[in-house]
């Protein structure tokens, strides 16, 4: 593939936040990567779905609370966020437990739309299969 073309990027987020640094680092790469104008998709599966939980408050553990940053992803044109349903189910969670992540659709008179799409494990497999580069976190 030549350098001028656009690649399908997939950020694969499988780790819980706070216990390890990977969730924070993934956000960092996504934000920096937004400048590279690739086709960016974010996948949250396994314990990665916990990254999007509402109401995270890291005051007690003394680390930076990066959860609000997810809400800024829409402003960076990162609005294809796939969350695996089986992973939510296993953890007793539903989409209502996750932070609402939205973007303004320029093709639809800047209507505010949800960036989150709940997908099945089979769709997650398709997503991985159709990506050019996977960044694993």
């Amino acid at each position, binding site marked *: 593939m030549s350098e001028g073309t656009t690649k399908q990027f997939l950020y694969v987020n499988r780790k819980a936040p706070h*216990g*390890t640094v990977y969730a924070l680092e993934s956000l960092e790469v996504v934000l920096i990567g937004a400048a590279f104008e690739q086709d960016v998709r974010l996948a949250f599966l396994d314990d990665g779905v916990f990254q999007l939980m509402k109401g995270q408050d890291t005051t007690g553990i*003394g*680390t930076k609370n990066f959860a609000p940053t997810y809400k800024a992803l829409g402003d960076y044109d990162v609005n294809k966020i796939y969350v695996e349903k089986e992973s939510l189910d296993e953890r007793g969670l539903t989409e209502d437990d996750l932070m609402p992540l939205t973007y303004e659709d320029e093709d639809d008179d800047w209507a505010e739309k949800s960036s989150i799409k709940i997908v099945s494990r089979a769709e997650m497999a398709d997503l991985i299969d159709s990506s050019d580069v996977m960044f694993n976190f």
Partner: protein
Amino acid sequence: MKFAIQINEGPYTHEASDSAYMFTKAVIEGGHEVTRVFFYHDGVNNGTRLTTPPQDDRHVVNRWAELAKENDLDLVLCVAAAQRRGIADADESKRNGKDADNIQEGFRISGLGQLIEAGIQADRLVVFGD
């Protein structure tokens, strides 16, 4: 009561060093004694003075050094682990023919016997790691 603490992971990647720090502080505030904090495996990476975390983030290394200074803690880096991971004091650096050292003041390098001794002397050995 006497507590010994073991830390297996370096700063920033795992929560282990943060948890160990907060636990150690709570042990002291609870009126107990901390006989030793032993940094093992990747844990020795807590003892380098070359870290520069972002301004808005905690400074894991300095935080340990300050807690040690205020409470006269014994912060020990396992020597074999430190050698493999490039943590050296002036002596180690000289002995191994290196041109620099990187240990943070407040930490010391010593052998695994210090961990075993800690296990014998302390009433509780609490391990934090991955």
